[in-house]
């Protein structure tokens, strides 16, 4: 089974807090048995998206078999955001798009024309778009799910499957909307079974939010899956199969046989 973490952050710092570097990040993946990580910016949500995108691409080029970078643009910039998206879409190393509307301080409906353009162009490039969800006022699960209705051909991922307070509607929404997925990143074991029953095992992807703290954060989030008692098929889909499909990764893309469930 190839393990793909669909939600991590690899950046130098979060304001005053230094974050772990790439070597420590990869070592943590090895320790916990993660083959591939989708990497997002953190400071790029606030400033200098192009610089953040370039840094993520450089990380991925240094570890092309382990790190998959996602593009972030600032939709408040209108046409400049679309231009930055296009610049990154021209680089095949990027395999997804990440927004964090809460930290980016804008609801998608406030910049709807720009977001429609971003969603359509990402859909044409067959890149999934992952949005932070579960946090008012700009990132409620309902706000993010609505994007799947705006552009049905786009693949939209709830970045936290409802997080703390929106898990129940997250399950309802991934069942309702065929192009809406849930990244199980934050909810707990009792929520996972519900998400799988509500949306189907093909609609739920493992994510950790790793990048904060040390390897233990990653191990904790993996426990959230491994302690849920999933069957082999569900486990394979949640831990990697669904991510591989959305990212259009070849079967040979990941190393095998790394340790599992670090203690």
């Amino acid at each position, binding site marked *: 089974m190839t393990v793909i973490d669909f939600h991590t952050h690899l950046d130098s710092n979060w304001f005053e807090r230094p974050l772990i570097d790439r070597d420590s990040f990869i070592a943590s993946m090895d320790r916990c048995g993660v083959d591939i990580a989708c990497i997002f910016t953190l400071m790029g949500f606030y400033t200098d998206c192009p610089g953040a995108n370039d840094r993520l691409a450089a990380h991925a080029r240094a570890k092309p078999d382990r790190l998959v970078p996602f593009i972030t643009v600032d939709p408040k910039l209108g046409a400049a955001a679309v231009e930055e998206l296009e610049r990154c879409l021209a680089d095949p190393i990027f395999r997804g798009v990440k927004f964090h509307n809460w930290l980016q301080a804008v609801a998608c409906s406030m910049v709807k024309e720009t977001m429609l353009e971003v969603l359509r162009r990402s859909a044409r490039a067959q890149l999934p778009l992952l949005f932070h969800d579960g946090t008012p006022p700009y990132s409620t699960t309902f706000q993010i799910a609505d994007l799947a209705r705006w552009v049905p051909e786009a693949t939209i991922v709830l970045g936290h499957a409802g997080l703390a307070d929106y898990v129940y509607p997250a*399950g309802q929404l991934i069942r309702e909307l065929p192009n809406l997925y849930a990244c199980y990143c934050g909810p707990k074991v*009792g929520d996972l079974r519900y998400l799988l029953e509500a949306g189907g095992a093909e609609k739920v992807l493992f994510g950790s939010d790793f990048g904060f703290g*040390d390897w233990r954060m990653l191990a904790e989030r993996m426990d959230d899956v491994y302690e849920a008692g999933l069957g082999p098929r569900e486990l394979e889909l949640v831990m990697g199969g669904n991510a591989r499909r959305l990212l259009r990764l070849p079967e040979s893309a990941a190393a095998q046989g790394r340790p599992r469930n670090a*203690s």
Partner: protein
Amino acid sequence: MSQGRMIDAHAMLGEENHLRLEADELLRRMDANGIELALARPMGSELAVNHRAGNDRVTRSPSRIRGLVSVNPWFGQAALDELNRCRDLGAVGLFLHPSRQGFMPTEPIVDPIVGRASDFGWPIMLHTGTYIQSDILAVAELARRHPKTDFIAGFSGFTDMWFELPGVFGSVANLYMDCSMIWGVAIEEIVSLHGSSRVLFGGAEPRNRYSVVLKMIGRLKLSPEQLRDLVYNNAQRIYRLP
């Protein structure tokens, strides 16, 4: 992980959307994980509106499950009467959910409820982490108004109020941390800044699992004494358990 005696300071009984747990199943999970005692509160309709049923459920469970009862402060005298009834049933604490029950922790209707719980010597856990009513800083304000009562931040602001934790625990001495949903790094930070006397192990069953929380606790860089505070001593002390 083996930490000796353990008290779960936050379990939930009843049914709420996709979550459900009966007392016998909670006991089974406690036995499987070496939990001596669990403090359980109602959930779902028995937390939001049918308080008497929920309070009966948690106080009439087997003796290894002790009741954190709940009332809605908007019911006024009827809520106080229900607290009296619960005291006679052996409740050990009060649980309030400002979001589900529709009040701001600093509203005047809350003070008589807090006063009655204080008269009984009960700690008070309030749900935190849901924006507006369940703001962890609003719970801190309530704790400042009632400095002789122990308050527990249920779920410790999980998730996006976590960055308030170091400041809020530093400024309010009678506020405690429920470790049942939060990640290990946050617990270590609170212990390093404010000591180990204000952190409580909880399983958040049935939403979380003992196995997950105990693995997380087992990875914490804490001394054996600090771990004992977390998993047993603090709950035993503030809930005055035998």
